[in-house]
């Protein structure tokens, strides 16, 4: 027999899309990372924004936590209901609502997945692409934007959250807010400018201030050809300079840097993987030439060189998203993978790379140091990635400890946590400028007076 809340929720979304069963509670209490489980009382899969509004009203009235969820692939526990309540699985709301080819933007529902948009554009708008991350294609666009994710176009245009053109958000009271040009225009061409940019009230808050139900995605030119080169070096202290030269060319699509002990082809070196595109052989070859020449002085001094990319490796690298990134999870035959990826200045690369080596040795872990350049070397995401065996509690605990040390190091090195775990959120808030923190407090208090929106996250008032 269902309680009143349960009945109400089942009425809102339909019996078929409501669950208070142990099976859903078990699954949705967890994510593939290291956070211990916290079970929801209810899981719902709504089909439209009106249902989400009703859920929010109900939750606000009854003071029940509400946790929106994409695919749970941030790995830092952001969709785990820390204080129980209702998990809203957004993925049924996955339609591509419109694509404006000339204005280069798309409007998609809050549960639309990365893969779906890519496939849609490939088929119907082959001259357009979006900044797709390397998380599995089930990751949702809205969630990736919500956590300020990064993707293939980040080196050119910034965080994926910089590449949006508007939002539709449901707030705790159940009202819909349109954010950006769509607030007063039928067109979704801007997320804020030239008016006050209100996306800051929602992005990066992990659902603690509102639930994204629609998102305008900026689209970019998609060229016919795409290629990859890898510049390798044994001088981690020169990586920042190399990237400075590469970003200066303005010819590169995406720059990833990685270092890992296996397989043997990667051992001992740092790999600057760079992608570039073109519509013609001439364009691609010209870019390749400019890119190669930009690093001439390092080649001359023997400090680095372009490796021959084995033919079998190219399709793996050019895949979008890269399946090999997900495969890292099974290196220890245990399906486990979590990383702390602070956003930090590029010149901190040598410090980061030394740190990950130190931690891997200290805790006996499999690792990969993976960085993505943001903007023209404005910053990078340095991912301290560890792979663990989910059936080995000791390995999981050592991984947790290693990641905790990463958090402390990142802060000291002047970095800022990306998709911060609850602990990292607290560390960030403890370090923050008091007046800035007060602003956050004010926003959270006003947008979520009853503390129902993904509670446990950004709990400024509880500091």
């Amino acid at each position, binding site marked *: 027999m269902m309680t009143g809340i349960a009945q109400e929720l089942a009425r809102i979304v339909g019996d*078929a*899309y409501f*669950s208070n*069963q*142990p*099976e*859903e509670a*078990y*699954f*949705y209490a*967890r*994510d*593939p990372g290291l956070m211990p489980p916290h079970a929801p009382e209810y*899981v719902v*899969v709504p089909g439209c924004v009106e249902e989400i509004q009703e859920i929010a009203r109900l939750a606000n009235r009854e003071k029940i936590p509400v946790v929106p969820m994409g*695919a*749970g*692939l941030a790995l830092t526990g952001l969709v785990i209901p820390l204080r129980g309540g209702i998990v809203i*699985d957004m*993925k*049924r709301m996955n339609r591509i609502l419109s694509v404006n080819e000339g204005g280069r933007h798309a409007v998609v529902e809050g549960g639309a*997945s*990365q*893969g*779906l948009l*890519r*496939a*849609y554009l*490939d*088929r119907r708008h082959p001259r357009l692409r979006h900044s797709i991350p390397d998380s*599995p*294609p*089930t990751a949702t666009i809205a969630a990736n934007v919500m956590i300020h994710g990064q993707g293939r176009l980040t080196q050119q245009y910034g965080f994926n959250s910089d590449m949006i053109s508007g939002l539709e958000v449901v707030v705790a009271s159940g009202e819909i807010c349109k954010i950006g040009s769509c607030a007063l225009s039928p067109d979704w061409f801007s997320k804020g400018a030239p008016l006050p940019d209100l996306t800051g009230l929602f992005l990066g808050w992990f659902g603690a201030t509102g639930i994204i139900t629609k998102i305008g995605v900026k689209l970019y030119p998609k060229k016919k050809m795409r290629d990859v080169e890898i510049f390798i070096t044994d001088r981690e202290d020169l990586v920042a300079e190399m990237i400075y030269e590469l970003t200066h060319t303005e010819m590169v699509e995406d720059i990833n840097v990685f270092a890992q002990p296996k397989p043997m082809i990667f051992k001992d070196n740092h790999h600057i993987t760079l992608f570039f595109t073109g519509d013609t052989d001439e364009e691609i070859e010209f870019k390749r030439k400019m890119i190669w020449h930009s690093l001439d002085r390092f080649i001359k001094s023997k400090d680095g060189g372009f490796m021959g990319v084995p033919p079998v490796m190219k399709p793996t690298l050019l895949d979008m998203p890269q*399946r090999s990134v*997900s*495969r890292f*999870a*099974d290196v220890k*035959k*245990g*399906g*486990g*993978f979590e990383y702390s990826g602070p956003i930090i200045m590029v010149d901190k690369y040598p410090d980061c790379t030394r740190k990950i080596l130190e931690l891997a040795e200290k805790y006996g872990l499999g690792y990969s140091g993976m960085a993505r350049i943001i903007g023209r070397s404005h910053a990078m995401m340095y991912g301290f990635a560890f792979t663990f*065996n*989910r*059936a080995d509690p000791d390995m999981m605990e050592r991984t947790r400890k290693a990641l905790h040390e990463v958090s402390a190091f990142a802060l000291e090195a002047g970095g800022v946590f990306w998709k911060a775990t609850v602990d990292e959120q607290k560390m960030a808030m403890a370090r923050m400028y008091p007046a800035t923190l007060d602003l956050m407090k004010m926003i959270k208090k006003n947008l979520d007076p009853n503390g129902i929106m993904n509670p446990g996250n950004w709990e400024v008032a509880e500091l």
Partner: protein
Amino acid sequence: MKYSDIVHRCFRCGYCKFTSDYTDFNCPSYRKFRFETYSPGGRMWLIRGWLNGDIKNSERFQEILFSCATCANCVEHCVFTFSDDLVNIFIAAREELIADGIVPPAVRDYLRNIHVNGNPYKEPAAGRGRWAEGSPVEAYTDQDYLFYVGCVGSYDERARKIALSVGTLLVKAGLSVGILGEKEGCDGNEVRALGESGLFELLARQNIELFRDHDVKKVITLDPHAFNAFKNDYPGLGGKFEVFHYTQVLAPLMEAGRIPLKACALKATYHDPCYLGRHNGEYRAPRSMLRAVPGLELVEMERSGENAFCCGGGGGNFFTDILGGGEESPARLRAREALDTGAEVIAVACPQCAKMLEDAVKSEELEDRIKVMDITEIVTGCLI
């Protein structure tokens, strides 16, 4: 439980839910139910939770496990090295539930009917070969091929027409075939897929002995499910015979022009059955048959080949219906997808797909816009 040492390796990344180009969710149960628990990753995590004692067997747990259509989309698209074992893992979990005796009534009933009647329709064995009465298909004595029909082809009203169509065309094409009729036994593919390994082994051994007694060297199956069992599971139990799906035998004859056909203006789309396509890699022969029909325009659905969307009949669901109907049922979604190609006909090579899709077309009220036909029914309609 078998594979209990690897269930923890699932990363719940969700590649298993998609096609290879991510156009759509392609796991039938996930697409219908929409809870992560009904996806392959969900099942892996729940099985682990159940083995660890964190969750118990319940009606929902059984629904989750038995709604899997064993379509192998997850096997095809999972990016990890254990992907080949995914469907086997779900079957292994079913085996444990069967051993405990706590399964959905529909599953229990299906298995009991097979055990008692030798078929899930509770029909007498004597009725098995009746579809062939009055047809050129004769009883098996020492012909080149045994034409193995299976339970669905023998007893289901729609499928019997397909059995007749296939059998007749095989004979017309000049092949030497015969049927076992009332002596035929259930191939057991669904029994195995539902986790009743003991009953499956019994059925298999009975069939192997029957074929041996009749000196059967080559078998043509009507149903891809039987094809799958004979090809992959019978050899390990002593089955020594060659097996073909009927499309694999007819395609070369049609390619060589040995079946004279007149022009037939028809726009058709082909629905890959999971047990012929993904499970056994046969995508070419059925298409080759269709392309050999003069005037036939073959169009592909968005999801075809390794990406075909399952009709939802596999994993026992054709009988148990645990995957269920409704607007979001796989079969109805597939019917709409077929319609989108502009085709007038959905060509099928499996009697279970045929019935699932035909019922779906009816539920969608599309009977005057698209028809479901077995490939041999199309070919027969164009014979000179």
